[in-house]
């Protein structure tokens, strides 16, 4: 492999992990805007999505059906959590909200441990195509699938929030919940929809990456932390900012691992985050108001 093909390899691996970070960051932003809380249990939907699909595939259910069933169960789970727990927590102090979502994530992780035990699962690639060779870099088909699905999810989100009435109502709730409820919008129901979106996107991110990584009940922690970083780079409230932040994070990480040092890549990435937070807390891509 030439030097250039290494760069191509890093670029694509950055885009792949960036897609996952972008999806999780976007799901965090949607939940944040609807419920004014950062959901520390978002990583569990990633785990449940991947593990439910793995179990269904092992039972011999076709891929598409397994994908959709797993998606559905994560959506129901997220809706259930919002309905039972999050509803009671309107306007509580931030620390309490953080601890609450952490408690939920512990319970979900415990639940996953009961169902799947401590084993790791991996899913077969969605398409049985030989890896593509591109200027000397080897790229498995799943990489393109991940990027394609990410693009599709982002497109769906854009259509939903910009072109549908419910999307508009959800944006109104995010801007000002009190005024929105005076206009006859059911704020609780919009928050419920947001959580369902969050669950769906979290599960999708877990499922598309399931053929590349081993997933077990604790796998949700790191993607969630990375999702937070991406979200902060984007400034917490912007969906496009969060998505860009995710890709930027993935690429930065891939190139620091490849070119600088794999040992200190986390330290470098987190230092960048602190610098961004201190000097531009509204995010790198925020428009000035």
């Amino acid at each position, binding site marked *: 492999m030439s030097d250039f093909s290494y760069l191509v390899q890093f670029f694509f691996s950055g885009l792949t992990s960036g897609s996952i970070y972008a999806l999780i960051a976007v799901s965090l932003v949607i939940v944040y805007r609807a419920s004014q809380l*950062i959901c*520390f249990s978002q990583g569990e939907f990633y785990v449940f999505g991947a593990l439910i699909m793995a179990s269904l595939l092992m039972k011999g259910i076709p891929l598409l059906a397994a994908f959709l069933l797993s998606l559905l169960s994560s959506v129901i789970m997220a809706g259930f959590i919002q309905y039972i*727990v999050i509803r*009671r927590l309107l306007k*509580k102090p*931030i*620390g*309490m909200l*953080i*601890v*609450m979502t*952490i*408690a*939920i*994530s*512990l*319970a*979900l*992780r*415990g*639940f996953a*441990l*009961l169902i799947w*035990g401590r084993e790791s699962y991996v899913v077969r690639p969605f398409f049985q195509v030989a890896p593509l060779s591109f200027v000397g870099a080897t790229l498995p088909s799943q990489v393109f699938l991940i990027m394609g699905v990410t693009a599709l999810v982002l497109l769906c989100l854009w259509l939903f929030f910009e072109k549908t009435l419910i999307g508009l109502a959800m944006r109104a709730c995010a801007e000002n919940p009190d005024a929105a409820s005076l206009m006859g919008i059911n704020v609780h129901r919009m928050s419920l929809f947001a959580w369902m979106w969050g669950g769906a996107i979290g599960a999708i991110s877990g499922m598309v990456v399931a053929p590349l990584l081993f997933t077990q009940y604790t796998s949700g*922690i790191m993607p969630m*932390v990375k999702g*937070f*970083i991406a979200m*902060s780079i984007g400034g*917490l409230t912007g969906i496009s900012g969060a998505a860009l932040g995710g890709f930027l994070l993935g690429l930065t990480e891939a190139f620091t691992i490849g070119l600088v*040092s794999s*040992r*200190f*890549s*986390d*330290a470098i990435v*987190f*230092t960048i*985050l*602190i610098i961004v*937070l*201190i000097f531009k*807390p509204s995010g790198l891509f925020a428009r000035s108001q």
Partner: protein
Amino acid sequence: MNIRRILTNPYLILCLSVLIAPFVFADKSAYVTGVLIFCAIYTILTIGLDLLMGYTGQISVGHASFFAIGAYVSAILTTRYGLSPLGAMASGMVLSGILSWAIGRPVLALKEYYLAMATLAFNEIVISLIIGLEGLTGGASGIRDIPPFAIFGVSFKHHLLYYYLVWLITIFVIVLSRAIVNSPAGRALSAIHGDEIGARAFGIDCTKYKTGIFVIVNVLASLAGSLYAHFIGFIAPDDFQVGTSVSLLVMLYLGGIGTIWGPVIGACFLKILPEITYHFQDYELLVNGLILVFVLIFLPEGLYGTLKKITKRAEG
């Protein structure tokens, strides 16, 4: 009435429980005292977090970072450079103080979720530096054979002796924290919690006070780290991950935030709970999570607040 007041004095209850706790359990094993020593160490950490979050309103999701620094400074100085445990502990506290003073000013200018993010990131940086700087810290496999604690040659190798020492320090930390909270500086901190702009309008130098309390709580965390390292004898980066910071937050809310006594209950409860739910084996994680959700929904003032309410109701 007076007798009841004396009997419900939290200091008295705590001192008595500390004195008799190791003898309540029939076997008096080192394991039981070990768990109780962990309770004390986590109490120190959680009280620090309470001063920072409960009284000053500054969120931290990275409180374990200075716990790590204290433990590693102690471990490195005693195993590599033959320093006495007391000297190593003091060096760790001084280093933590200087470091938190340096990062405190820029980081504490952030608010709410941004501050949570920055502290979480700092915790991750500390951990990845510990793993990365293998030559100094032993990397992911950690440092072993850390000597037991000693003061001027008097060793605290016996677990019961160390137990009393650690709890004595913990009670001192409680007294100190209550003194801080009730001082004029403590009231300035509460003012910052209530309304920072308002506090500034009254002439309170918010940056100075926030940095000051940040330095104090991190020095306490470093102290707890040294006590931990000298007790357990072996430390690895896993003990200080964000997960540890998170469980400190959990202890704080479980016990009751903004009360000083709450963290004592929360820390002891969460450290002893696994010893009970341990019998559930794989159900442990689920049970712990559900207990927490339950407490947060139905007892928002935490265990201490609820206890206080019950005793007040009993008094009529």
